[in-house]
C-alpha cells in the first residue's frame, strides 16, 4: 500500500495542477480545494490509467477517503497479478 501513495500523490498533483499538494489516507474531497464533479471524473480516469486498473460500476461511490482508494487499487492490482 505504501508504495502506491507517492504515485497517487503525483496523479493528484497533475490533476489539481498543484506540485505541492500532499495527500494522506484520511484525505477526503472536502479537504482539497477544486475537487468538484468534473475534477472527480478527471481524477478517476487518471488513476485508472496510472495504475492500469478499471473500476467496476458502483465501486467509486463506496469510497470515503484516499486511504480506501489506495486499498481498492492495491486489491485490484493483486487480483490482476494472480
Amino acid at each position, binding site marked *: 500500500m505504501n508504495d502506491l501513495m507517492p504515485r497517487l500523490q503525483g496523479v493528484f498533483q497533475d490533476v489539481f*495542477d498543484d506540485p505541492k499538494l500532499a495527500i494522506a489516507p484520511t484525505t477526503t474531497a472536502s479537504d482539497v480545494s477544486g475537487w468538484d*464533479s*468534473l475534477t472527480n*471524473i478527471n481524477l478517476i*480516469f*487518471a488513476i485508472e*490509467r496510472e495504475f492500469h486498473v*478499471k473500476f467496476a*460500476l458502483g465501486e467509486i461511490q463506496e469510497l470515503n477517503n484516499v486511504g480506501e482508494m489506495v486499498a481498492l487499487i492495491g486489491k485490484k492490482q493483486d487480483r490482476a497479478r494472480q
Partner: protein
Amino acid sequence: MQLPKELRSPVSAETVLRKRTALRKELLKQPNLLPVRIAILGGSTTQEIRSILEIFLLAHAIQPSFYESAYGAWHEEVMYQSPELWSFKPDIVFVHTTWHNVSRFPDLLQPEAEVVELARAEMARFEAFWRKIHEDLGAIVIQNNFDLPRSRPLGNIEAAESYGRVNFLLRLNAGFARHAATHSRFLIDDILYLSAQAGLSQWFDYGYWYNYHMAVSPVATVSLAQNVAAIVKAVYGKTKKCLVLDLDNTLWGGVIGDDGLQNLVLGRDHPVGEAFTAFQRYLKALRARGVLLAVCSKNDPENAREGFSHPDTVLKLDDFSAFKANWNPKPDNIREIAAELNIGLDSLVFVDDNPAERAIVAAQLPEVAVPDVGSDVSLFAEALEREAFFEPVRIVVDDLDRAAYYSGNAQRTNYESAFASYEDFLASLEMRAEIGPFAPVYLERIAQLVNKTNQFNLTTRRYTAAEVEAIATDPASIALYGRLADRFGDNGLVSVLIGKVRRQAVEIATWLMSCRVLKREMEYAMFDALVEECRERGVREILGVYIPSRKNGMVAEHYAALGFSRLPDGPDGSTLWRYEVPAAWSPRAAHIRRTGRPAMRTANV
C-alpha cells in the same frame, strides 16, 4: 509560440486529460488570441468536452468563452428560448447529441413506409431546432451526426432491416448530410467516423455512462474535442494553405541521386513502393481540392525533376506550385517558397522523413507546422490528418482555381521579365475585374476572406457569416466584392470593401485584398467602383482608417497613395484619412477592364 510538447502530435489522450489544468494555464499566455463564443448544447454530460475543447481551441490561438446547456436540455433551451442562452449570443452552437438522444426508434418488424415516416418526423424535430438557432440566435451550427450503440439485440439485423437501430441511425445521418449540403452555416461533426476510428468499445464506456452520463468515454472526448476544434479553426480561416514536401524517402523510396530513376521504390511491384504511390495519390487529392504543394529537397535540380518522369509517379511536375531542389539549408528554401507563393510562413506544413531536417526547420521557422510524421510512409497521411491542417468548411470553386492559379504564378513571373516596362506587362495580362455589391453566391467566400486576410487589410476587422449576410442587405452599407481574371487564369474573389454611409460621408470599415493579386491595380479598380457608387448615392466624402497590426504594414500608406489627406491620428494609434469625391472622375485602374456580373451567375442566385 511553440505549442507545449504534450499537444504536438502524436498527442497522448491520457496526458492531455491528466495535465489539462497546467496546459490551459500555459496556452493562455499566448498573445493575440481570437475570442469566440461557443454554446455547447448537450444531450448528455458536456463538462468534460468543454474542458478539453478549450485546450485544443487555445492550441489554435482561439480563446473560447462557453455556455453549457443544463444537462440533457439541448432541445428545450433552443425551442423555449432559454434567456441565458439568448443573452450569451453565441457565434457557434455545438450540438452534442448522440444516438441516445433519438426520440424514438422503430418497433420490431415495423413496415418500411412507417420507418421512413418516423425518420422524417425525427428530421423535422432537428430541422426546426437548427432553423431557430440560425434565425433567432444567428449562430453557426456544429452538429454531431449519430454514433452507433455498443450493443445489438438484433445482431446483424440491426443493419440489414429498416427497423434495425443501425439502419435507422444511418438513415438519419443521411438526412443530416442532406441538410448540410443545402445550408452553408450548418456543419457536421462526424462522430460516426470518430467512433469507428476509436472502436465502439473505446468510444463508449459503460462505467462513465452510468456514473456520469458521459455518452463519450474520456479518451474519445479528446478526439471529439480535436475534431470540433478543427472545424472551428476552419470556420475562422485558420487552415494551412501549402504542403512543403521532401522527395527522397518521402515521395518515393530511395535516393534518386544515388540510386537512379529506375531503382526508385515506387509503384505496385513492391509493398513499400505501393505505399509511396498511395501517399502520392493522397497528396494529389489534397491538391485537387486546392491545397498547394511545394517541393523542398536536397538534390540536384535535374535529378529531382527526373523523379517525376517515373512510370509509376502519380504526382507530376505541374502539380507543384513551387519547386526548390538545391543544396541550401531547408529553412532558407522554405522562406523562399513562402515568398514566391506570397503566403505567410504560418500557412505552411513541412513533411520530411528525416528527423534532423524536421528539427532544423522547426527550430528556425517556428511559424511553420512540422508534424512528426515518423519514417514509415504508410502513416504519413494519418499524421497530417491528426492535426487537421487542411480541414475545409466547404469546398468552394475558388479553392479549386487557387492551385491552378499559383502554378500559373511561375509563368507570370517569367512572362514579366520579357517586357520593357511594368505597364506593358500589366497591359499584356488582359485583366478583367468583376466588381459588384455582395451577392448571395459569394457570401461564404467573402466571410472566408474577411476572416483570414492579414496583410492587405486596413482594419483587420473580422465578421461572422451572419454579420456579412446582414451587411449585404443593409441599405446604409456600401459592400463590394471584386473578382479578377487574367490571361493565365481566374484568381477568384480577391477583394472586399465595406463602407458605412452616414449622411453624405462613407466610412470604410473594411478594405482588404488577397496578396496573390498585389501590384495588379486591383485596389484601384475597387476604389473606382467605390467612387462611382458614392457619386450615384450623392456621397461626397470618403473616410478611411488604417489600424496597424503585426502583419498589415504593407498598407500603412495605402490611403496616402490614393490621394487621401491625413487627419489627426486616432487615440488607439490608427491613422485617419479623408477624400473628397470629385465632380469629374476618370478611372484609376488603367489596365483592368470591368465586366458586369455574368448573367448565368445572377440567374443562379
